Structures are given as C-alpha cells and as structure tokens.
C-alpha cells in the first residue's frame, strides 16, 4: 500500500515533468524520491505519515510548473508542428522518403506524446502510406501471347512472386496501419491538450 502510493506519486510527477530536458527530469525525480525516503526513515512508516509527507511536498503539477518556470520551458501544446508531423508521417514518404524521415524526427522530439506512443507512431508503418503505394505499383503477373509461324499461341507469364490474395492482405495492412496510427496519435494529442 505504502509503496504503491509513493510509486503513484512519482509516476504522476514523472509524467508532469515530461516537458523538461531528460537530465533535469531524472535529477528532480531522484531528489524527490530521496526526500520521501528521508522523510519516512525517521518515522513509523505508516500510511498516514506517508500522506503527510506527500502533502507537504505538494501537487506534482505544481512542482512541474515551478520546474518549467525555473528552466524557462514552456508546456508543450499541440499546434501546427504536431499537425505537420502527422501529415509527414502519413504521406511524407512520397517526398522521396525524406518527408517521412523528417516527420519521424519531429515525432521523436515532440513533447506532446509519450515514448510509448512515439514507438507506435514510428513502427506502424515506417514510411507511412509509401509502402502501400509501392506494393500497389509492383507489376503483377504479366502475360504475353505470341503466335508462332505454325499458328500456335504461346502464353508466357512473368512476375507475380506472391499470390494475389496475400498481396491484397498486405496492401490492406499497409493502408490501414498508418491511418490507424495517425488517428491514435491524434486522439492522444487531444487528450493531453484537454488536460493542459
């Protein structure tokens, strides 16, 4: 019980400190954790005592607000940058792939999304809709008919390395994947903006 209360407090503080540079964030978390440990080491370690310690520390959002102010960091808000990021992730691949790479860098450096959300955005699907388009453009089975001098018709087919049905399944995944992941990022972004 005691452990989960402390963990919950620290987790919520960690989340609130997201806008700060990673080193500052780590440092502050570590110091607050030490503070809690020190405060508890002298007492009976009961739940009431722990709650008093956390009350005296104050609300994690107040600590984070103070940290942002002291280090001149502004709270990240979803804006044009994030919209641009999502557009690039989706269709940036068509700009010679570079567009998607830029989108990926913008995503990775954004303060709006958590690390886990970023990983989803990067892995589903690298290149955005580009892989789907490339797959659709791949030559399917090409057959040519030639008539020989004897009047026989010879049909020759080439290409088509994978079965057609499998190609459709992969295409569907490659289309739905990036659209789903961008919608996922939008919903997370909106949730966070509503909290701010």
């Amino acid at each position, binding site marked *: 019980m005691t452990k989960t209360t402390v963990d919950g407090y620290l987790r919520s503080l960690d989340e609130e400190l997201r806008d700060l540079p990673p080193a500052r964030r780590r*440092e502050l978390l570590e*110091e607050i954790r*030490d*503070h809690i440990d020190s405060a508890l080491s002298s007492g009976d370690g009961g739940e009431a005592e722990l709650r008093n310690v956390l009350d005296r520390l104050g609300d994690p959002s107040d*600590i984070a607000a*103070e*940290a942002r102010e*002291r280090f001149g960091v502004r709270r990240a808000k979803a804006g044009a940058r994030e919209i641009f990021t999502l557009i690039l992730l989706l269709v940036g691949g068509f700009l010679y792939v570079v567009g998607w790479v830029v989108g990926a860098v913008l995503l990775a450096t954004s303060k709006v999304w958590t690390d886990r959300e970023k990983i989803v955005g990067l892995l589903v699907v690298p290149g955005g809709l580009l892989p789907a388009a490339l797959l659709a453009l791949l030559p399917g089975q090409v057959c040519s008919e030639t008539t020989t001098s004897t009047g026989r018709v010879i049909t020759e087919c080439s290409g088509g390395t994978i079965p057609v049905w499998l190609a459709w399944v992969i295409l569907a995944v490659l289309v739905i994947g990036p659209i789903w992941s961008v919608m996922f990022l939008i919903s997370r972004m909106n949730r966070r903006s509503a909290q701010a």
Partner: protein
Amino acid sequence: MRSMVPAATNPELSAQLRRGVLEYCVMALLRDGERYAFDLVRELADMDGLVIGEGTIYPMLARMRRDGTVETTWRESPSGPPRRYYRLTTAGRAALRGFVKEWSTFRDTVDRMVGGGS
C-alpha cells in the same frame, strides 16, 4: 504592484515576492557550511510564509546548481543510503554578498515609501 492589499492576505503577491528572494535564503542557509538536501528543504519550508510546497524547492535548487551558485556532493550516511549535500560555491558566496547589500538598500527604500519602517 497594482493592488494595495497587505501581502499576508494576498497569496499571489506574496508568491511574487518570495520568488525573487528564496534562492538567496537558500544561499544564506548554506553560508556557514554544507547541508543535507532534506534538512535544507525542511528548514526553508518551516519558515513562515516562505514556501508553500516543499517539492517546489527542488526545481529551484536544480536551477541554482546549473547557475553554479551551489553544488552538491554525496556523503555516507550513518543510517541508510548516501545523502546529497548542498554547499555554496564561490560564485554563490559572491551572489549572496551582492544580494545582502542590495537588499538592505531595497528594504529601507520600500519601507520608507510604504511606511512600514519604524
């Protein structure tokens, strides 16, 4: 200074005033030697009206460390894990001296103007 409400009944004003002087209070507490971070924070928090949440002192300490007015070292603790101690740097000592000089002039002037002096 838009309002003329006394500081004690105006949390926003007192927060503004506190903000400017709190780090010098930290330096003053460290003037006579290093202190364990936890004790330092508790001591500040116990001073009337100076601090609202103990947690908000840590961002300020981190900033002061970056500015080079204080530094930290780890020391073995008789009980439990090593503890982080804060101490004043030479730059911090100079900043505190500057503040003390500035503060007495500032305080006298404001006292004269608002009639708080004796």
